[in-house]
């Protein structure tokens, strides 16, 4: 959907005017709203949604690897507003070479472990994260298992 079409959806319209330049496109599919956000604007978009649109909860953060496409990774945020009984999904594209995005831990402290998990399994670095280290795997693990070029079976040599 283009930005003009998104204006019909209240949350999308509010975000487009509240955080200018953040929304690049979006989709309303199977009763779920998805908004693509410019990666460098993710913090301001989230801050606006929490402060002005009552999205008090961050449900989860994860990523999708679209290897060999470029930009390779998609960082996915699921936000929820219990008060408005509404959910929204935000997505940011980050490059495969040295993937980095700003952390949203300053907005929801609960983002901490989700960002650590995404870092652990995809190797995406979150800037300004207070404690970015592996969470599931041992500290000395090599590679990032949820990347598509990481094998499912086999032995380490």
């Amino acid at each position, binding site marked *: 959907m283009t930005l003009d079409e998104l204006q019909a959806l209240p949350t999308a319209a509010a975000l487009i005017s509240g955080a200018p330049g953040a929304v690049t496109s979006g989709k309303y599919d199977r009763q779920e709203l998805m908004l693509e956000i410019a990666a460098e604007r993710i913090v301001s978009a989230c801050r606006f949604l929490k402060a002005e649109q009552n999205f008090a909860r961050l449900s989860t953060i994860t990523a999708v690897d679209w290897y060999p496409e470029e930009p390779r990774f998609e960082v996915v945020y699921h936000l929820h507003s219990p008060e408005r009984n509404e959910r929204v999904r935000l997505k940011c594209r980050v490059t495969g070479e040295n993937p980095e995005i700003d952390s949203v831990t300053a907005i929801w402290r609960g983002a901490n472990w989700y960002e650590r998990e995404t870092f652990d399994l995809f190797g995406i670095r979150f800037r300004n994260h207070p404690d970015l280290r592996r969470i599931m795997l041992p500290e000395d693990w090599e590679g990032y*298992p949820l990347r598509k070029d990481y094998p499912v079976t086999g032995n380490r040599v």
Partner: protein
Amino acid sequence: MSVGDIPGVTTVETETPAQAPEEDMRPRKMTLNMGPQHPSTHGVLRLLLELDGETIVSAQPDIGYLHTGIEKEFEVKNYQQGVTLTDRIDYLAPLSNNLCYCLAVEKLLGIEIPPMAQWTRVMLTELTRLNSHLVWLGTHAIDIGAMSVFLYCFREREDILRIFEMYSGQRMMTSYFRIGGLALEPPRGWQKRVRSFIDIFPSRVDEYEELLTNNGIWIGRTKGVGRIALEDMLDWGVTGPMLRAAGLKWDTRKSQPYSSYEKFDFEIPTRTENDVYARYLVRIEEMRQSARIIKQALEGMPAGRWTADAPHVVLPEREKMKTQMEALIYHFKIVTEGFNVPAGEVYQVIESPRGELGYYMVSDGTAKPYRVHVRGPSFANLQAIPEMVQGTLIADVIAAIGSMDFVLGDSDR
């Protein structure tokens, strides 16, 4: 020395006094490693506690001991095979995970599930809630020193597991819900078995309450313990009975009904005290409400098929395979290569016994999921431990983490 500096598994360390012995009057801090093999951590949770005497200065949960790469494994299994992995995520609520996974795929496929299958799903998912809450109550009470409650709870849990076994042939890893409906036709005589359980269950809840609700020791150990503000819980992503014990009336079964929950009459219990005791009362009342739902499902169970009318997804009946060419072809195709799911993405949410359980599923149009992310409620709930136990006594840590009701399989996946 801060907690984070300690390498590997350290048992007990004391800070070396920097000053001369006669000046050493300042409080000493001790680091205690609780878990990962500690009975009250219910699984393999490691807690690094920094203690000042008996008071917790800081706590740091360490997870990952049960990480099995389930999310990666989804990507190499076809959609129907993936159901068996979901059992192993939250092993105390396997059917809740089955349900959420199937609902997500069905949403992508856009298929309609017949009422009979939906109601059976509701009934069995509520039995799962009872099963999970019973394990929680029994082990939580043992942690605090009430031994006998455990035996009472496991008596009823056994009845529930027998019902699961009757339905699916399995007590724990049921995999009974499949994409498109149920794995098998409900067994003959299920009504009698469920009725005899549900007729007696409310009086059994009274028994647990008799043992605990007015028990002086129980109240002393749980009232006013493990408090954490509602705003902080929302910030940390805590969900489920913990939020309801703090006064937030939010339950996905009511706010975003799925699998025809909107047709059932039940209440969402809430409390405002926001302590371990309130969480106990909320879960006890949830058990009574689940029993109500099961009774309604039992009495109003619609007739009809247990699988959807979707021949490309659901395996055909044996009889049809022997008489119809198309059925045989579908059977061959489903078994050898699975079925393609339209490209797209969904985030399906249900209310598991522990809180918000979400499956984020991305399909690229093939027969295997491109990506499955499981938002387990335990993962987010565990994050709130440091805030909950800071400044309390070490004995209260046991009560506080017991009241969270986490499953490490659910958090580590």
